[in-house]
């Protein structure tokens, strides 16, 4: 298919070259004839004109002149390959190979390449997590927030076995995301198998614009699998207060 395209392109360029040359030759011929006729215009009769037409070979003498001028015109001539492929040699150029491809095919290839990159990135992320936080010791703490009417979240501090592990302040952007249902992974770490205690201290602005600070704690047993704990902040419609709860996910 590519070979046919190249041949067609070359044929078309050759045709263009020939037509340009013939046009220029004809123009030169006309010029020459006009000049020759113009010199003796008043004295020429119809026979003379016929004779002049018959003496066309003399006019064709101008052809070499046209040929002499040809190089100058060739300089102006633009190779069709340059227009089509951006190079005079369409063979063996990667750019040409790209240009040959259908835009849709290229788009598909780009899309598949992007997907592969995303997949590799995801695999690397999982590998990194597996290495840093093996499932036998991994502990994750998540935060969900659905109490906008009663509580504006400001920050969460986490302690495991009385040791501070995380201190996070929330920005407007994060709060908006959480109000839309996002769950935030606040902490990922390692803990040995056994009994542990998690304490979460939540600060913010409570009902009637008052500063609000609450602590919730939970004792949990770390087994050989990954541990998931969620801190849920929910509005309590009966008490008109926010509620805080730590929940284990198995």
């Amino acid at each position, binding site marked *: 298919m590519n070979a046919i395209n190249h041949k067609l392109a070359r044929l078309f360029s050759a045709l263009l070259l020939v037509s340009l040359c013939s046009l220029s030759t004809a123009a030169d011929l006309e010029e020459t004839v006009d000049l020759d006729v113009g010199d003796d215009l008043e004295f020429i009769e119809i026979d003379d004109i016929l004779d002049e037409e018959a003496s066309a070979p003399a006019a064709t003498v101008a052809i070499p002149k046209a040929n002499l001028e040809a190089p100058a015109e060739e300089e102006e001539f633009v190779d069709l390959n340059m227009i089509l492929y951006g190079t005079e040699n369409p063979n063996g150029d990667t750019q040409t190979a790209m240009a040959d491809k259908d835009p849709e095919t290229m788009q598909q290839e780009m899309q598949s390449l992007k997907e592969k990159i995303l997949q590799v990135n995801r695999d690397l992320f999982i590998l990194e997590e597996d290495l840093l936080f093996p499932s036998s010791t991994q502990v994750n703490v998540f935060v969900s927030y659905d109490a906008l009417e009663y509580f504006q979240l*400001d920050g969460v501090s986490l302690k495991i076995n009385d040791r501070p592990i995380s201190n*996070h*302040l*929330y*920005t*407007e*952007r994060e*709060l908006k995301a959480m109000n839309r249902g996002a769950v935030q992974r606040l902490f990922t770490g390692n803990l040995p198998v056994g009994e542990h205690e998690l304490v979460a201290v939540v600060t913010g602005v409570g009902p009637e614009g008052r500063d609000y600070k609450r602590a919730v704690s939970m004792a949990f047993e770390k087994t050989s699998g990954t541990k998931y704990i969620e801190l849920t902040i929910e509005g309590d419609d009966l008490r008109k207060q926010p509620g805080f709860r730590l929940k284990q996910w198995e």
Partner: protein
Amino acid sequence: MLRTLNCIIIGLAILVSPIAFAKKPPIGDKAPDFTLHSDGPHNLRLSEQKGYIVAVVFWASWCRSCPVQLKALEQLQKKYADFGVKVWAITLDKNRADTQHYQEHKGLALTVLYDETFVVSERYDIDDLPSSFIVDRDGVIRHLQNGFEPTDVNTFDTLLQSLVSE
């Protein structure tokens, strides 16, 4: 026994060294991220300001040379507000009341952030007040400065102008 002791000492030295030799983040590096309480309704995080040029100044209400820089930065913020320039004034006052008192009496018109636990000022190795740095739209540190002279206004102006036109 001696060998074990040596190992412990070397280990401790390695652990402590990053703290002991903490230096200012160099110009051209990504600015270390931080989140602080602000005088506005929400906390502010530096990494969320991508697309803006952020000039940060560390100050305190008891610092005598700080008002000059704060006033200069107020003027620059007014000048470049439409070009996405923000100025944050991180106060190292231990009590917010001191900062608020200063704001009321001096009429400070900058976004004030509270670094009460000095986490950010330690991360940026702030020894002198006022100290300042400028972060470009990509979150890269473009200028660091200790102290402030009245002539430094021109330096800040020129720098902000060039950053705005980038």
